[in-house]
């Protein structure tokens, strides 16, 4: 996947500036990749096997999975458009984590089972709330470079 990014360095106006998988970016891609695999497999299982048990929580897990996959894809793809898209998605992710986190604490009755973003991502060592902050910082610095 990284080779594809390297194969077309002329994907944007600044060849050096739009590689999002360089340096600290690779760590970000790894963490987003792990979250993607984790949330996709989790939500596929939940929706396929026991969706009726907690429809709200499982639907929100699907949303989280889609967001993680999209951000991973944009980071690997690189380029200015992808960088902007990733920035928007990281912001959406942060809003999502904060909303769902607050929601699960305020109205636990609506969640018979937990979602990926329940309790601000406590089940994932709070990575869901830390990752978008790191991501936004990195994507802003990538523009400056």
């Amino acid at each position, binding site marked *: 996947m*990284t080779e594809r990014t390297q194969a077309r360095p002329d994907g944007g106006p600044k060849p050096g500036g739009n590689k999002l998988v360089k340096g600290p*970016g*690779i*760590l970000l891609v*790894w963490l987003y*990749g792990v979250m993607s695999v984790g949330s996709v497999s989790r939500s596929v*299982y939940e929706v396929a096997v026991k969706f009726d048990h907690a429809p709200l929580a499982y639907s929100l897990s699907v949303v989280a999975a889609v967001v993680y996959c999209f951000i991973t894809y944009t980071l690997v793809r690189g380029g200015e458009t992808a960088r902007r898209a990733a920035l928007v998605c990281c912001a959406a992710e942060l809003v999502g984590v904060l909303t769902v986190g607050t929601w699960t604490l305020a109205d636990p009755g609506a969640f018979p089972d937990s979602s990926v973003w329940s309790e601000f991502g406590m089940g994932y*060592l709070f990575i869901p709330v830390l990752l978008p902050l790191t991501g936004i910082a990195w994507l802003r610095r990538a523009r400056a470079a």
Partner: protein
Amino acid sequence: MVKATVRGPAARSAAGWGRSGPAAERAPARNSLGPMLVALTVALSAAALALAAWCGFAAYRDQPTKDWHFIGMGVVTVLALAQVVVGVVMLARGEKAEEGTAIFVSYLVGAFLAVPAAGFMSLVERSRWGSAVVAAGGVVLAVLEVRLHDIWTVG
């Protein structure tokens, strides 16, 4: 659910094999895989955390992953492969994971792939950040091992 209340190889042997009474206690050798899975889980958690510390130190010293790091990753991967084999054999023998076979198998596969995937990424990124990826991979593996243990025993 019943198994959650009984622990230890003897209980597992009786519950897992449908044997009861003195016969099960006289032939514990046939079911030596339960403790083996636990031993592998503990060994893998320790090895993964050691790998994470080692590669984290390399990242701290601004170094990429070296040959010795890859040997370390190889050791962890071999352990993870052994765990996959033991886990699948236990399922094939008719034992059940408390949270279900699908979840157990997907965690086994995920645990097996975590460190090699991080290793390949550190080959692409020859800087301290490649080492940081492997360190993160080790932490991920350790977390997966804890979950794996829960999936097998607690439910």
